[in-house]
């Protein structure tokens, strides 16, 4: 397969015949090893190439290890590279042999050519042999201090490799803190980026056991460090920019002007040709504005055009990845995209996975003004050569019909499908007409007329057959020959393979019997007999149940089987909104493509370096923070937005592109350009920056932000709580899923409260003294998360609370759910007052 063509082999007179290729190579290598003849490097190159080509196609050439090492005593860099590649591949399986290479690799690490130093260091660290780690520490240490940035770049990744071979060696050598120093001081941005990648991995892995590591990890998303990266973002290569942007997503700005600063700074990243950079930027924008409804919507408007451009440029694979994200946004806010529906039309040559996304988007954006055109387009696809897509197009028409008020025209289209006489079209359309009738019973006359003309013999698919039978039963009084059609189906009972169809047939026979007893009685008897004799348990049970209930009392049976039906107003969504929120939180990841949150497809240890431990026992499902309440703060901001146009110009001018997000140009903007010394002092001392809340205020003050004023202590309202309330976790979890959010708000936490909140337990005890009990808690500074519950005094009415406290912004996001919605406001006041007293008593 690979290039080792026979003809290319250098003719060697001493070549013994009959030996295998590998031992040939061994001999030839041995001859060349000691040679100093001119041109020997070229012959070595040829041989090395052959060895590596065998390696690629899976032939074991590990027996050449010794010869390869001997031959690599050369200054030819191409040869060295090939040898390193070979060694890296076989060292792990031959640790003894790997020891042979240590010597010459260590020597190369001191070579005067920086390329060779770097390459040797990389190979040394790639050996992945545990008992050789002691040899790595020295070269890595000097590599990190090397004057050449290429060597430092390699050394940083080498530290990470060492960590994966032997974490303790890496930590003991104090490499993480050296990396941290490099990250903050190195002039080469790729070195900085590699440090960031390495430290994220190392500290995330250490965080579970070491408090220091978890503090360090928190410091990565502290304000000074984030700003340090953001101010240099254009110096990073496009891939490192993605890394930085991913980190920024985790950062929680303290106020809205900070949010606008960051967005204005990143605005021009939306024009980048690399889709990964654009999506990472969009994620930052979406996350930052979650609590600012108006701006959030502006963001949607702003990102539309760049996303559409990415979808149509680039390879089909890339455009699929972007389209999946667009799909997610369309599903969340269809109204924003309702005028862009033509972009979601399918092209005949697109793969099915793209068409499927587009069909769903078309369905979602359909509204009063565009439905006619969308449905017309979808009807074109119904005749598509790609049958699965044709089916889904018909289903899409049905879904649109179910979500619209004016279904007049759509019903006609659906009925036309029934007349198209393509069996799969008929089948899909039948299922749809059935759903439509369940929602709009008033259309029964028009539909029944057409459905009645369909011969049940032309319908084979179980789902469609079941739908037809359901309609025959439900509307048997309007369909002249319903009893006879059903009867003929009963006669062929044995040929019906689908249990679903047989179940429907039983029920339809019953319904028909109550409406037209004389015509149905005998067929019903036959159906029940066949049903009771059926080998399928459910069919058997249902038939027996019908038989007994009929014998017991016919009118009771009618009330059970054929009660008057209420029209279905909304069909259940297949995916819960909590899952959808979770996916949205994981924007710009595989979750969006798979349409599943990451916990459904990854092992815990692989969720990514920045997946913070926010799982609170088993309560973690419904916690996405999307319930956005426009707070007063935001409104004030909007006013500013209108007032300070002149200042807006100023901010605009300094940036490449005028942006839609504007902000009063005040002192806080200067903090983006905070001096290096402040940053260093804050970052190099994470204890100050992240851990101790008081200290973090000191820094905030340095940056000119001021300490938020303590909120006034509120007087407790007239709601009494049960001091000994009890609720078990599973009930809590169940209730949390079922109940709607009654109240969602942001509460300021007093500086004293923030100071007292060094660990979750402190707050638990405090809240308990106010009869508010904690069921789960977790998190690390600055983010804590709690689930509380409380019960009304002498009543079993429950209040459930999710409370996320960020100590660096001194804000608590509170979501309250209540059995009794009317008192949730009272409870909220009570909760707020209890929280405000925290730290003062």
């Amino acid at each position: 397969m690979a290039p080792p063509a026979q003809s290319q082999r250098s003719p060697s007179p001493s070549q013994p015949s009959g030996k295998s290729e590998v031992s040939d190579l061994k001999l030839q290598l041995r001859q060349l090893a000691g040679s100093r003849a001119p041109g020997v490097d070229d012959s070595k190159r040829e041989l090395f190439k052959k060895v590596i080509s065998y390696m690629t196609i899976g032939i074991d050439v590990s027996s050449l290890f010794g010869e390869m090492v001997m031959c690599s005593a050369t200054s030819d860099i191409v040869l060295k590279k090939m040898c390193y590649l070979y060694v890296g591949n076989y060292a792990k399986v031959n640790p003894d042999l790997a020891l042979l290479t240590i010597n010459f690799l260590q020597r190369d690490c001191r070579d005067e050519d920086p390329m060779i130093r770097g390459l040797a260091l990389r190979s040394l660290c790639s050996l992945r042999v545990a008992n050789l780690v002691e040899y790595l520490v020295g070269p890595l240490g000097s590599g990190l201090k090397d004057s050449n940035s290429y060597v430092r770049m390699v050394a940083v990744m080498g530290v990470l490799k060492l960590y994966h071979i032997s974490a303790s060696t890496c930590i003991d050598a104090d490499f993480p803190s050296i990396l941290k120093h490099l990250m903050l001081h190195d002039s080469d941005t790729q070195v900085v980026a590699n440090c960031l990648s390495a430290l994220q991995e190392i500290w995330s892995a250490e965080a579970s056991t070491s408090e220091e590591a978890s503090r360090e990890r928190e410091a990565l998303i502290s304000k000074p460090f984030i700003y340090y990266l953001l101010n240099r973002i254009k110096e990073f290569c496009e891939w490192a920019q993605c890394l930085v942007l991913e980190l920024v997503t985790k950062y929680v700005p303290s106020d809205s002007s900070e949010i606008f600063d960051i967005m204005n700074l990143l605005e021009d990243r939306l024009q980048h040709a690399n889709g990964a950079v654009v999506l990472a930027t969009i994620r930052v924008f979406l996350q930052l504005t979650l609590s600012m409804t108006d701006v959030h919507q502006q963001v949607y408007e702003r990102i539309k055009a760049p996303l559409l451009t990415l979808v149509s440029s680039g390879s089909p694979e890339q455009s699929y990845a972007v389209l999946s994200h667009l799909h997610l946004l369309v599903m969340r806010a269809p109204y924003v995209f309702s005028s862009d529906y033509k972009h979601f039309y399918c092209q005949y040559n697109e793969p099915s996975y793209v068409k499927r996304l587009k069909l769903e988007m078309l369905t979602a954006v359909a509204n009063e003004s565009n439905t006619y055109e969308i449905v017309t387009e979808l009807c074109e696809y119904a005749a598509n050569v790609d049958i699965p897509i044709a089916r889904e197009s018909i289903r899409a028409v049905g879904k649109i019909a179910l979500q619209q008020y004016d279904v007049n025209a759509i019903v006609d289209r659906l009925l036309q499908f029934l007349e198209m006489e393509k069996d799969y079209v008929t089948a899909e359309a039948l299922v749809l007409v059935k759903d439509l009738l369940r929602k709009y019973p008033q259309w029964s006359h028009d539909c029944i007329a057409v459905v009645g003309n369909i011969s049940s013999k032309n319908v084979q698919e179980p789902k469609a057959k079941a739908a037809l039978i359901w309609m025959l039963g439900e509307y048997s009084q309007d369909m002249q020959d319903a009893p006879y059609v059903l009867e003929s189906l009963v006669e062929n009972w044995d040929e019906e393979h689908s249990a679903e169809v047989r179940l429907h047939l039983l029920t339809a026979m019953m319904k028909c019997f109550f409406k037209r007893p004389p015509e149905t009685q005998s067929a019903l008897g036959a159906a029940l007999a066949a049903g009771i004799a059926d080998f399928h348990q459910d069919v058997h049970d249902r038939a027996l149940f019908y038989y007994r209930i009929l014998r017991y009392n016919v009118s009771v049976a009618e009330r059970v089987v054929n009660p008057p039906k209420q029209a279905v107003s909304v069909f259940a969504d297949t995916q819960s909104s909590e899952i959808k929120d979770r996916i949205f939180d994981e924007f710009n990841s595989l979750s969006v493509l798979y349409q599943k949150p990451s916990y459904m497809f990854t092992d815990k240890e692989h969720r990514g370096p920045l997946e913070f431990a926010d799982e609170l026992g088993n309560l973690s499902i419904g916690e996405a923070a999307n319930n956005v309440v426009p707070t007063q703060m935001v409104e004030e901001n909007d006013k500013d937005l209108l007032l300070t146009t002149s200042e807006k110009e100023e901010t605009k001018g300094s940036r490449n592109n005028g942006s839609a997000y504007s902000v009063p140009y005040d002192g806080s903007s200067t903090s983006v350009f905070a001096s290096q010394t402040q940053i260093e002092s804050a970052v190099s001392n994470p204890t100050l920056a992240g851990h101790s809340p008081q200290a973090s205020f000191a820094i905030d003050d340095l940056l000119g932000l001021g300490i938020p004023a303590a909120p006034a202590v509120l007087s407790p309202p007239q709601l009494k709580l049960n001091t000994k309330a009890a609720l078990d976790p599973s009930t809590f979890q169940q209730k949390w899923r079922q109940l709607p959010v009654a109240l969602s708000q942001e509460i300021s936490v007093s500086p004293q409260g923030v100071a007292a909140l060094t660990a979750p337990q402190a707050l638990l005890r405090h809240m308990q003294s106010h009869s508010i009990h904690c069921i789960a808690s977790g998190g690390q500074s600055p983010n804590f998360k709690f689930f509380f519950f409380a019960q009304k005094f002498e009543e079993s009415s429950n209040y459930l609370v999710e409370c996320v406290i960020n100590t660096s912004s001194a804000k608590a996001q509170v979501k309250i759910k209540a059995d009794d919605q009317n008192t949730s406001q009272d409870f909220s006041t009570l909760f707020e007052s209890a929280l405000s007293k925290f730290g003062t008593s």
Partner: protein
Amino acid sequence: MISQFFVLSQRGDNIVFRDYRGEVAKGSAEIFFRKVKFWKEDGQEEAPPVFNVDGVNYFHVKVVGLLFVATTRVNVSPSLVLELLQRIARVIKDYLGVLSEDSLRKNFVLVYELLDEVIDFGYVQTTSTEVLKSYVFNEPIVVDAARLQPLGPAAIFMQGTKRMPGTAVTKSVVANEPGGRKREEVFVDIIEKISVTFSSSGYILTSEIDGTIQMKSYLSGNPEIRLALNEDLSIGTGGGTVYDYRSSSGSGAVILDDCNFHESVRLDSFDMDRTLSLVPPDGEFPVMNYRMTQEFKPPFRINCLIEEAGQLKAEVIIKVRAEFPSNITANTIAVQMPLPKYTTRASFELEPGAVGQRTDFKEANKKLEWGLKKIVGGSEHTLRAKLTFSQESHANLTKEAGPVSMTFTIPMYNVSRLQVKYLQIAKKSSSYNPYRWVRYVTQANSYVARI
């Protein structure tokens, strides 16, 4: 962070395989290939570019029939990995001149060398050919370009147009020419892919242009380049991206819906005089991507008629009219049309004196195919086909057949009227006068007429 990278041939053979983190089992290439090959039992559906098997995520892009694959266990950004795979393909092409199974196999040591510098322990280091040049030492073994299927849209310049040096697009960025000296030249290609859907009455339902200004520089010493576009070019339709086919035609202005730029592009004077300035890195890269839904004159009009002609028989007439100037010639035109499922035979009748045309009835998927080598601007071509059915058709024939789709390439023509007005290279000396090639091409992306 990616765990493995590999390139598979169409038959599933490993051409290169690099394991960066040792987290994914070695058999991943086989697992991947089996999954891609047998995505759905009926073999009708293509595997998506990203899927998950037993906790391992597989990403792949197809480039000239090769599969470029990455695996990871981490929930990474899919755009990042797919973009990276595409970039790796581009870097390799920059180095080898031609990307093909053959050239990869001949140069696999060089490819390994590149891969080691592009990714370290799963993290991307650089994908810039420019930067890589200082780390990579193997010399490419150049394969004969003429025999190989070329890569990328710029490759179409190899056929037909005499003014272009055919080998240029397949020249390695790093390898020296046989003479030892490199020719100083720079290529700027304006490539537009157009999508048009005509209704059965010939009315344009949707139309879009997806354009790229692609550059490939062989200039030494990285001089600065200034590219001037149409002065009346405007971006964004003001009130958002609402489709409006009636607006602004006639005024002659070129209005782009949106565009994006390569990292190296500086837009300092773009707002003022529509000039892009950049120091082009080595290798091929898109300077600017743009998208346009402004009305344009479609290069071809398609008329199609299908009607019954007696029992179990029908006739199809397809007319294609070229609506561009007669000094322009379109090439490699293919017209396709799905026929009713119960079609058993089709006999074709071409216009008298037709040359370079071929017709075919694909029995397996009941498709009519009509290929034309070239179509000169202003001309019209007709195809008649007599169909035989195996059963009586009940419904409307137009619901059973169509739509007609068309692919073509039109060199030296672009529908958007976007132009590179001039290409200025910062002068090193008065005698420095490198070759500058500005080329236009229009290709069909999805060109469909409903019947």
